[in-house]
């Protein structure tokens, strides 16, 4: 099977074969990261633009590093220092960058669907680095890669996602990717933070953390997005923590070989006990390393893929 996409927008639209291509390619790049010279010249002469409309350290530096490890040139744009401040639209910004002959755009945006909007209108490839509450495909891929690396398989594993599922693009990307590869996925959190109808995605729902932990082979603990908790969905942080914090005591109920993950940044003591985060079951820092390899694979595959016809949409809009 060949890779033929120009963009990576979400995991929902990928086939299991395509997900496996990315994971297998990432494995080759993971080896590069252990070399004395952690660079390969495959994207020499390509230019990749990172547009982050939301604050991010891990994802933006991971993409930047991935591009540099492939010897591509990178340009980093944040809205505070760009013409977005002067009222330029997203599309105009992207078209102007494209006129400077760039090859790929990595975009994080607060608005769900922004990367899809761009992908249909510019010739350069578009990578979604997180859009609103919709998708964060590279985070989903690096989580799946890490599970595969630690557990040797995805098929048949019980993967539990704990926390604020409603506001989480990480949860959505994980659910789509993992179920496609044959894992059993469950979510756990307060009823106010679990979207209605999530069972339709093939997901089991737990409201009791102890019960959920007994079931799980892998526990992915989401960050409680403090900036999104102003709507009164939680009485207090302390109450959330008392019921849903993954503590060492609670983990004693879990399977002895349970794998603990967290996409970061962590609120220590809120959703995860520091003793769990730094404990023997935690693979949180492996996730970060694997993230660079997975993003290298994505940038590499998208650079070699065929350029899809984008002229059509543009033509339609002109009419």
């Amino acid at each position: 099977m060949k890779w033929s996409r120009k963009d990576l927008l979400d995991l929902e639209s990928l086939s299991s074969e395509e997900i496996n291509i990315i994971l297998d390619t990432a494995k080759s790049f993971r080896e590069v990261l252990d070399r004395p010279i952690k660079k390969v010249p495959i994207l020499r002469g390509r230019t990749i633009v990172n547009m982050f409309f939301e604050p991010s350290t891990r994802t933006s530096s991971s993409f930047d590093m991935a591009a540099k490890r492939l010897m591509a040139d990178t340009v980093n744009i944040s809205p505070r220092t760009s013409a977005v401040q002067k009222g330029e639209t997203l599309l105009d910004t992207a078209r102007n960058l494209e006129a400077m002959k760039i090859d790929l755009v990595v975009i994080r945006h607060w608005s769900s669907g922004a990367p899809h909007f761009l992908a249909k209108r510019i010739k350069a490839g578009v990578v979604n680095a997180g859009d609103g509450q919709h998708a964060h495909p590279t985070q989903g891929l690096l989580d799946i890669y890490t599970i595969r690396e630690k557990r040797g398989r995805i098929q048949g594993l019980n993967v539990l996602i704990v926390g604020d599922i409603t506001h989480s693009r990480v949860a959505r990307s994980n659910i789509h990717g993992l179920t496609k590869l044959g894992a059993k996925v469950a979510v756990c959190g307060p009823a106010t933070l679990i979207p209605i109808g999530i069972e339709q995605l093939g997901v089991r729902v737990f409201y009791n953390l102890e019960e959920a932990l007994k079931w799980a082979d892998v526990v992915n603990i989401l960050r409680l997005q403090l900036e999104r908790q102003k709507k009164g969905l939680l009485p207090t942080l302390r109450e959330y923590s008392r019921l849903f914090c993954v503590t060492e005591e609670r983990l004693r109920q879990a399977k002895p070989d349970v794998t603990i993950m967290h996409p970061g940044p962590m609120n220590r003591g809120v959703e995860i006990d520091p003793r769990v985060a730094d404990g023997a079951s935690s693979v949180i820092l492996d996730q970060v390393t694997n993230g660079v390899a997975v993003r290298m694979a994505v940038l590499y595959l998208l650079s070699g893929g065929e350029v899809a016809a984008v002229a059509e949409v543009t033509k339609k809009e002109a009419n």
Partner: protein
Amino acid sequence: MTKQKAVIMDAKQMERALVRIAHEILERNKGTQDLLIVGIKRRGDTLGKKIARIISDIEKVEVPYGALDITFYRDDLQTIAHQPVVNQTELNHDVTNKVVVLVDDVLYTGRTVRAALDEILDFGRPKRVELAVLIDRGHRELPIKADYVGRNVPTSQKEIIGVRTLEEDGEEKVIIKEKADEVE
């Protein structure tokens, strides 16, 4: 489609060529001191392992071995039919001050060897790099020359040389094929 024209080496001839190359490597380097054999994936990896084994049998010492996957060093990202990568470089030895003998199945344009040289140099600074190939078919596009050659096979660019190994193809031979639908 391609049609097979002739078998240019059978299993026995391949084995003899590899044994001779192994002896030549030992002769030129006066033994196995500082020697590191590195196969270029995938067929060069198979042949490189064989050469390393033959040298070990002759000298009764283990010769260090590694394998390179040169995909990330290619110069034709746009033109290759884009295949997913599932191979990996496995080089667990320090190359600095070693005599690295690169092994590949067929030497043709020289571009694969160029990529392998670039990759090897990213791992360290070898004392010397040598090149061993089973078949040299000519048509170089870069100034690259093999130090050890199994057989020189003059070819036309319309032809394809296929090295078959037991590990990958279930049979050992070298065949020459013609691109049948080539329009002149």
